């Protein structure tokens, strides 16, 4: 079965670069790999290949490394068309309320990314699929999206509106809902809630399909090897703590915790120099190195992990080979280090 590596972490810590680096390193170790990336910077996109699009394409310089970008822009339309019959799908997509808010419908983009990952992992075209997660929610949004999408299509709102489900029939509003909807329309001045209700009722036909599919997506997440990326800054450290607390709900314990933009430990001792500009500069960076090592020590003490340290680089590598070197240098971000054979 295809192994999935899920790279999670706070925004701006270097998840996308590290996903690509892990993918390239695992490919160099002899596995066929797909790297699914979300929003690569220009240089990184170039390193992964000039034609980076939603269809997997080979990465220059590698035999068995492909890369693709997740395109979740028309996510809800795709989900609806996949799980509803043509007539209902048309009605859903033309609902006045849905058209007004479709672009920010909850969990749509996160779930579309999760589906995309599962589709590629299920295709068995690759031995390993490395998934970079979207910045919002640092990855938890994607992990939680299967449950959230089930809650939306079969959850509280719908049950309240329709009462007990009547299989095979387009349900009517429940007795509780009817008077409230009428009152709500008076307050709102018109049938907004009715549009919403119509939409939710139609959406119910997608429940069986979405329910089955989303549970499969969840199972993929649960068995994935997660890699948690952080830096020593306050916000990523806070997110990291949150991940350790919330990840057990969604995925396995991280196989690696990567401390990115790390400074050498030997800089910490600096500060008693002769006072020339080079010493003054080293002293400043030394303070930062000290703060970083304290943050790493705290993480180790609290969660019993030995962080994988990735040095601070002025520029990310410009080739896939350079990316592979970056992961290889840690000694822990390859097939063995991530236990991808288990």
């Amino acid at each position, binding site marked *: 079965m295809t192994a999935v590596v899920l790279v999670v972490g706070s925004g701006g810590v270097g998840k996308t670069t590290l996903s690509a680096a892990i993918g390239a390193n695992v490919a160099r170790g002899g596995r066929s790999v797909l790297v699914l990336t979300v929003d690569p910077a220009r240089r990184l996109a170039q390193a992964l290949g000039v034609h980076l699009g939603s269809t997997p394409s080979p990465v220059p310089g590698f035999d068995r490394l492909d890369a693709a970008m997740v395109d979740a822009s028309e996510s809800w339309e795709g989900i609806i068309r996949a799980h509803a019959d043509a007539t209902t799908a048309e009605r859903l997509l033309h609902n006045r*309320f849905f058209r007004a*808010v479709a672009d920010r*419908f909850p969990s749509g983009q996160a779930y579309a990314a999760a589906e995309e990952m599962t589709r590629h992992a299920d295709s068995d075209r690759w031995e390993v699929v490395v998934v970079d997660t979207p910045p919002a929610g640092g990855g938890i949004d994607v992990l939680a999206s299967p449950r959230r999408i089930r809650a939306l299509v079969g959850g509280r709102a719908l049950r309240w509106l329709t009462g007990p489900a009547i299989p095979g029939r387009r349900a009517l509003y429940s007795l509780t809902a009817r008077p409230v909807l009428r009152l709500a329309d008076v307050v709102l001045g*018109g049938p907004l*809630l009715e549009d919403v209700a119509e939409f939710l009722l139609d959406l119910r036909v997608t429940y069986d399909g979405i329910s089955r599919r989303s549970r499969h997506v969840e199972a993929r997440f649960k068995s994935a090897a997660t890699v948690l990326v952080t830096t020593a800054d*306050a*916000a990523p450290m806070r997110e990291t703590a949150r991940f350790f607390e919330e990840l057990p709900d969604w995925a396995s314990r991280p196989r690696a915790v990567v401390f990115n933009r790390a400074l*050498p430990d030997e800089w910490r001792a600096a500060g008693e120099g002769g006072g020339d500009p*080079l010493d003054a500069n080293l002293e400043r960076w030394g303070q930062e190195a000290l703060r970083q090592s304290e943050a790493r020590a705290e993480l180790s003490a609290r969660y019993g992990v030995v962080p994988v340290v990735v040095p601070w680089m002025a520029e990310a590598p410009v080739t896939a080979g350079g990316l592979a070197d970056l992961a290889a240098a840690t000694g822990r971000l390859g097939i063995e280090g991530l236990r991808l054979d288990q």
Partner: protein
Amino acid sequence: MLDRHLLIVTGKGGAGRSALAASLALRAARGGRRVLAVTMTDSLGLSGHLRTGTLGPKPIEARPGLSAMAIEPAAALDEYLRIRLRVPRVGAMTRAFRVLAETVPGIRDTVVIGKLLWEAARSDWDLVVADGPPTGQVLSLLRAPSTIEGLVPASRVKEQAAWMRRMLADGAGTGIVVAATPEELSVAEAAETIAALSEEGLAAVAAVVANRVLPELRIDRGLLDAEPPGPRRDAALLHLDVAAGQRRHVAGLRPDHILPLLFGIRTPGEVASRLADLWELA
């Protein structure tokens, strides 16, 4: 910038939104203004930077002249139904709206932005500073009132949505602070947000901020050739190389304010008060 009634700080993840929001609130409070700092997303960021306890829907005083709170959509919705729509406290009705607000992003966003605007309009505060959503979400939040305005026919809800839209677009009262770190994607997101804000007339940009920028290191690269290998040389090279990349990105951002990377500072509280010292506000 601080003469406005409402500032909403946005930026890509990692740009330092809550540190910047906290520092602006501290700075305004030092100047004698009555300030409310509001977090619209993860409340731990703002509470850490202001050294308060847990933030909730009721403002608490962080220090004289500076209060802080977190907007919770559920509490904001209840308040909206009760006070603004005068919906009687009927259980089924409240439940209906709550369930639908969970489902309908437009309603939820409008209630959240409405709560912020009503706080800004209150006479208790001279200035409200919001630790806002990231650049990826701020536009849909700011668009929400006009979405709702377009969806519902003439009603109190429509009037209130129109009021929100006008308040946001009033550049004298409301301003968006767009922050970025000097990195490609952070700057690109900031630029897209700035363009969309003005194109759609959603809100005025009060300031563009480059955050966590390395100070200039006045060392000649030629000098380093003579320097033996070791930490002194490595630290200088890293600084020069990182700073060179940052300069390109800062130039692309064209910021009104540049704030430095603070070396070795440990607590968020220290970061915010240090940044509060550093704002150069004319």
